[in-house]
């Protein structure tokens, strides 16, 4: 046995490759963000910041909530023994497997006012009176289209995470509940949800982080339009840094963004009622 100090070093050495990598790739740039941040006085006057934050919050809230519900349903269905379950699971993962930047183009085509299949389908079903629906031209619809495309893409991510959580809930608990006379709904409320809480918290935090930083999808699908109604904070940061070449203010915006995320994660952890660390 090595003495305790050495042992601690050896233990830390397991984490070293990961820490070094993240240090190089994440921490240095983040440090630079703090160092270069500038133009704080412009923040309160920045109407575009306010509106993009608002849009991003709406987008994040909508996508994460819908994905959570759909993902949970999906996960529960996919855990049931089914013939051809492997294929079903692979099929479900396909949306996640398609490149966002490319799929966003496809969505643009699907939502196209003239040639789009979405309008045509709804028209054929009889839900709308004209196949020409300018999805991406109307603020509400454009946001809905972004949400739909994102939900479609990332629900499998959610489902996969929740599936591993669900699989860890012992069957005996359900059996016990059944003996106690709890129906499926009560079983869900009193066993599934509470026991899944840590997994849900984890999934929601990571999804919220991704969703809050949404970039490619909206960039390609709407470019932030119409009238800036789908302008997201990450697009704004990107524009500030790469188009306006205003790195200082871009860093400031990033810090604002990270602050919002920290706040959101805090809320999720608080709601989930326990910290995983």
């Amino acid at each position: 046995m090595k003495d305790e100090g050495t042992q601690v070093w050896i233990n830390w050495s397991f984490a070293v490759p990961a820490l070094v990598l993240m240090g190089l790739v994440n921490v240095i740039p983040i440090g630079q963000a703090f160092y270069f941040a500038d133009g704080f006085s412009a923040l309160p006057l920045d109407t575009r910041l306010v509106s993009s934050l608002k849009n991003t919050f709406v987008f994040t809230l909508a996508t994460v909530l819908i994905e959570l519900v759909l993902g949970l349903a999906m996960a529960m269905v996919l855990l049931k023994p089914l013939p051809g379950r492997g294929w079903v699971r692979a099929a479900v993962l396909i949306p996640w497997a398609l490149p966002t930047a490319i799929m966003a183009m496809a969505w643009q085509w699907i939502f196209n006012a003239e040639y789009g299949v979405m309008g045509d389908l709804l028209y054929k079903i009889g839900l709308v009176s004209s196949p020409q629906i300018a999805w991406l031209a109307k603020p509400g619809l454009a946001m809905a289209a972004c949400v739909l495309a994102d939900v479609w893409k990332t629900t499998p991510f959610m489902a996969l995470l929740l599936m591993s959580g669900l699989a860890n809930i012992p069957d005996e608990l359900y059996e016990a509940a059944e003996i106690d006379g709890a129906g499926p709904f009560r079983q869900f409320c009193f066993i599934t949800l509470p026991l899944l809480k840590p997994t849900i918290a984890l999934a929601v935090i990571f999804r919220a982080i991704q969703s809050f930083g949404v970039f490619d999808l909206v960039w390609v699908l709407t470019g932030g339009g119409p009238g800036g109604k789908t302008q997201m904070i990450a697009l704004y940061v990107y524009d500030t840094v790469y188009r306006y070449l205003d790195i200082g203010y871009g860093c400031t915006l990033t810090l604002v963004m990270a602050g919002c995320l920290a706040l959101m994660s805090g809320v999720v952890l608080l709601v989930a009622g326990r910290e995983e660390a």
Partner: protein
Amino acid sequence: MRPSPWARLFLGCSVAVIVVWSLAPFLWQVITSLKPPAEVVSVPPTYWPSSPTIASYFKIFENRPFGTYIVNSFIVALGTTVMCTGVGTLAAYAFARLSLPGGKWAIRAILLVALFPPTILIVPLYKLIKAIGLLNNPFGLILPYTALNLPFTIWVLMTFFKQIPKDIEEAAAVDGLSRWGTLLKIILPLSAPAVATTGILVFIFSWNEFLLALTFISRDAARTVPVGIALLSGVTIYEVPWDQISAAVVLTTVPVVLMVLAFQRRIIEGLTAGAVKG
């Protein structure tokens, strides 16, 4: 619990809905890829190509070295997956099981790092990758992809490792396994579902990443699929060649589906083996 016929019907319908929901936009790509270019923009859209053709699949290979792109994407995605799960497993194990003074703070720092959007990282990363001479090199992508996926990987694996009973590890120590051996022969196989799950997610992330791949790779021979698809061109620079893009999307999704199918057995096995109880 024997499901009633109604329950079975409900389950069947749910599965059908889920599969249709997941596949429909993709199938639309398949159909589009089989249409001749002119039909792609027809109004109203046709739901089946009037004269199906696979010309677009040949066109993408004429237009661009797609075979090379696919190989590159594979190298990058596989490299990232191996590196990320490898490095992530080590770290997660250390944080979950070894005595690390200050480990709790490190974990919080890792989560904090995940809060910063990758968009902002591009310029400093570009400088870094340039400085170590990895532009146009698959490792120029593997390194940042790995780092970007590490917080998530570590978090998931750590949660899973914590659930494995400690005395199994002790039994391994008595049996003669070192820390390494325990990690490789006991912890990893037991965590196969978690490792496979994160592996799939990381693989797909790396397969799809666009911005970094676009910025760090300028040599055509080193490019990856999503950038390659964005480079497909029509007759003019304004024209978007939908038929080819659809064909490329379909074509490049196939390897991912195969990958998922391969991994997916592990997930089922792992999840249904009664896992780590008793």
